[in-house]
């Protein structure tokens, strides 16, 4: 009895091995990558917006596959950000667009469409900033002075270059989870008089030498157009 089981198993093993070899050859001959447009949104921004009065916003993301490794990519977003500094606080509201290319540096197994992204973007934002109030930074032992009348700086804009490092992983059929980290360098901006653009939507916090960082977590859906 046991002998017959063993020989049966052995037979099955041989057959399955042969089947696998056969299947593999078929795959390499026939598998084609999917090309299409992928659209999604930042999943962390809405949560931030819900819990934090001072940091509201959303971001839509999208990419379009050009070649095996290159994608056209863009982000579109809105931010309403209030920041309290030691001696003043300000609110910046505005929208931004980032456009550029993604390069997939990851060699996928057959049938997989994950990405390790290195990319470049050009970013542009138009925004309004309100200086809500400020206190003169002076000797702490003397009476202080706080100006509570807000000052509006409208129609400001900024542009920047952005380096993208990120991941996109297909977690369910056609559904991707993504994460990206971005380093920004400001190219141009209209600075408000007697103030400074300390925050730019899309660019986020502007550090001293006009550089910045941002990141996003996205969920996106692939709409395949054709296979190649």
């Amino acid at each position, binding site marked *: 009895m046991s002998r017959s089981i063993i020989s049966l198993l052995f037979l099955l093993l041989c057959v399955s091995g042969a089947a696998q070899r056969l299947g593999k050859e078929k795959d390499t001959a026939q598998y084609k990558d999917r090309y299409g447009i992928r659209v999604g949104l930042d999943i962390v921004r809405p949560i931030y917006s819900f819990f934090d009065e001072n940091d509201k916003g959303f971001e839509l993301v999208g990419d379009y596959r050009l070649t095996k490794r290159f994608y056209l990519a863009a982000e579109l977003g809105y931010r309403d950000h209030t920041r309290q*500094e*030691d*001696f*003043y606080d300000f609110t910046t509201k505005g929208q931004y667009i980032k456009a550029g290319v993604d390069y997939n540096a*990851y060699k996928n*197994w057959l049938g*997989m469409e*994950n990405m*390790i992204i290195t990319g470049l973007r050009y970013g542009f934002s138009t925004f309004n900033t309100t200086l809500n109030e*400020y*206190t*003169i*930074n*002076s*000797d*702490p*032992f*003397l*009476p*202080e*002075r706080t*100006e509570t009348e807000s000052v509006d700086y409208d129609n400001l804009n900024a542009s920047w270059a952005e380096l993208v490092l990120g*991941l996109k*992983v*297909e*977690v369910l059929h056609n559904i991707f*989870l993504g*994460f990206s*980290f971005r380093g920004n360098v400001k190219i141009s901006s209209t600075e408000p008089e*007697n*103030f*400074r653009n*300390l925050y730019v939507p899309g660019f986020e916090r502007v550090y*001293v030498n006009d550089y910045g960082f941002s*990141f996003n*977590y996205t969920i996106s859906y692939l709409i395949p157009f054709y296979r190649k």
Partner: protein
Amino acid sequence: MKPSMRSVFLILAISFSISCERDDICIDDITPKLIIRFYDFENPELFKDVANIKVNIEGADGDYINETITTLTDSIALPINVGGNQTRYTLTLQETEALEQEENADVFEITYTQEDLFVSRPCGYEAIFNEVVTDLEKDEDNWIDEIVPLSDPLEIINESSAHVKIYH
């Protein structure tokens, strides 16, 4: 998802969600102080030290209620009140036996207009002072002979040089 891919994703996602603490502190020049240099009344070209001087600023709390400078010095820097457009200083020479100095309080006032300037992210706004006018209150025995602004009109925009001379 390949296991290696999954772990890379997790590590990256976690490491970037731990955000940084702010580390910026104000190191730029902020609202300037009034810098006074003391000169010899008899010999106007020469500095003349003051010793054991007490400074009171009207409206101040803490240190400047009774700030005492006991060492010899030929210059002092006094904060200017941004809460109003004038600051009243009382400079008191204190009794010092070694110098045969008797207690003598003199009062002077500066009036000015203010202008607010943005400095930097951590420092915020400073005030600078324009159209500064000095006024020495005469009493029966002034130890200060004369207060002379070093520029006309006097503007106090930084602390890189003295703003007024006091002859005594």
